[in-house]
């Protein structure tokens, strides 16, 4: 969950691109509403990347692995 960032780019015509970085899996889409509220606009296109299809590593899972060592 570290390094989660929202990067918003505003071009000189005022068009906006927003990227959610550092969030693996479908939970990145939880930020859709936040982005819409910040920009006060309509999302006209959405691009999912490979990170979207990755699994989030949960803290509990890590603990389990440590205990097994």
């Amino acid at each position: 969950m570290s390094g989660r960032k929202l990067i918003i780019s505003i071009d000189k015509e005022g068009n906006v691109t927003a990227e959610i970085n550092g969030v693996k899996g479908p939970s990145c889409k939880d930020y859709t509403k936040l982005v819409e509220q910040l920009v006060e606009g309509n999302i006209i296109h959405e691009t999912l990347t490979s990170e979207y299809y990755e699994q989030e590593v949960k803290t509990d899972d890590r603990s389990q692995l440590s205990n097994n060592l």
Partner: protein
Amino acid sequence: MSVRFDIRPLILMGEATWNQSVQKQGAFSIPTNMKSGELIRNTLTKLYGIYTTDYGNIFETVISGYQLVFQMSGNGFFEVQHFYAEEASAITRMIKEMEMEYQGMVQDYVYNAIKTKAEEKGLVLEQEAVQKNQSIVLTFNLNA
């Protein structure tokens, strides 16, 4: 990056409610690429220090002796109407100047709106940069 959104801010989407009943017709019409009446008014005030007379969604002003009527056209952009053919070239130059100033106003408007909303929501602005292509990039930390 896990997801990327392309967003069209409402300020770029034009004023959909166009009141045909108060339409005012000048003799000549010049199209513009400006969509927001509010930002056009701000542009006129900044460039020429003037204010407009409003008639619903239409507004009128006089710049350097030229009477101009701003009116939303059917394609969602404002057009400028004027009344004398010999004024056309001077007014066209004036509109180009307005469009350039307006473009900067749109970017400023969107930038300020986003920063204000982000502050309201307690987002931490980690970095702000202007790119070579004049894009403004804001990076917010979502961990805070």
